């Protein structure tokens, strides 16, 4: 079982941004940001890079890939 977690909500709050403002900056819908933050939707690699670029961090500092044990 693998899981992709992310720190988008945490980083957004640190910068005192609303979901709407972040969505506007990344040119995606607010629902997309909400879904990414809640882990319901994994962004494409392109959007992940844009998010990383926006926060000035590396992708792996925002998106954390956790590999579980066995099947």
């Amino acid at each position, binding site marked *: 079982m693998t899981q992709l977690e992310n720190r988008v909500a945490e980083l957004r709050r640190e910068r005192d941004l609303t979901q709407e403002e972040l969505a506007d900056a990344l*040119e*995606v*819908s607010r*629902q*997309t940001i909400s879904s990414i933050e809640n882990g319901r939707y994994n962004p*494409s690699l*392109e959007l992940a890079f844009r998010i990383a670029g926006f926060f000035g961090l590396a992708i792996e500092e925002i998106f954390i890939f956790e590999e579980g044990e066995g099947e």
Partner: protein
Amino acid sequence: MNQKRARDIAGFVLGLVLVLIGIALWEKRAGGVLMGLGAGLMGMCAAQLYLGWVVSKDPKLAKQLRIEEQDERAVYINNFAKAKAFDFLHFLVPPFLLILSLARVPLWIVLLGVSVYVVDWVVYFVFHVKKSREI
């Protein structure tokens, strides 16, 4: 954007021409069909032209519409729904064709249904192969 506007204007004019031909052929069956098609085309293109005009006056709305259209989650949801609809259609069509054939409808209607079904699968395989070669 200008190309889209030109296409909508051309569509509107074509719709108008169809309506006029429809009026000229009013007495015949084709007249009503042409009027219906023309009016539909005119309405669709007029709506697109009006939307384009409204959007050109409001850059914020233009950005919002662009985001809604290109948003990757929205595109994903739309494609997922279309894929499910395709699966459902292909689950639904064979029994429907069987019912048609059992109901002794004219053979050409059954064959038309079968050909639509086959064409749909051909389109699926064409795009499957094309995309497989691309990526």
